[in-house]
């Protein structure tokens, strides 16, 4: 079991009801972590429509989750 900090943005923040949370997880990858969080908060976005960040850099969904990681789930962006 590891502990990570998860940040939700935009629609995901509204659906989760929080901006950040500390999560204890047995997930091995970022994809597995999102699956857990999506189930717990009933998040509607699918990973194929999103990106994910690990420690403030974009990462692949297949990247391993490590204890103390800061993970951000990134809905479709709309800057500019």
């Amino acid at each position, binding site marked *: 079991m590891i502990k990570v900090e998860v940040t939700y*943005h*935009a629609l995901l*923040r509204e659906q989760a009801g929080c901006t950040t949370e500390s999560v204890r997880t047995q997930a091995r990858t970022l994809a597995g972590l999102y699956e857990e969080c999506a189930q717990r908060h009933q998040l509607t976005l699918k990973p194929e*429509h999103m990106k994910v960040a690990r420690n*403030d850099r974009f990462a692949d969904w297949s990247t391993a989750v490590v204890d103390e990681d800061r993970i951000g789930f*990134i*809905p479709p*962006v*709309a800057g500019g």
Partner: protein
Amino acid sequence: MFALSDHGIDQHPLCQALQDDESGALVVFEGHVRLFNDGRTVLRLEYEAAPELAANEFARIEAEAVARFAIRAVRCVHRVGTLEIGDKAVWIAVLAAHRGPAFEACRYVIDELKSRLPIWKKEHYADGDSGWINLP
């Protein structure tokens, strides 16, 4: 250089800080909040961002622009918070010795910014509805 701002973007001091005797061209792009989007009347909008991730990703875009085009500097400020119609949402400046690379790099930076920076926009419409932009 990239910054997020929760208040209005004043380009005068930003441009003054860009003085460079070897640059003959300064190209600035401003994105403004529009009254209409997809046929709907917009009242106001909200931007939010992932600050550290946005700064890191902008640094990559800036490095790409410097590698591709003969430019000397890139500056960008993006708003967060609540914006009204006509407000500046984003300000990008590119300095170069000549205008060609400055125009091309400015176009490159805004296009990449729009598709890559972790910034989200929620529009509030005149009919009372609201929604996040670019959802699938």
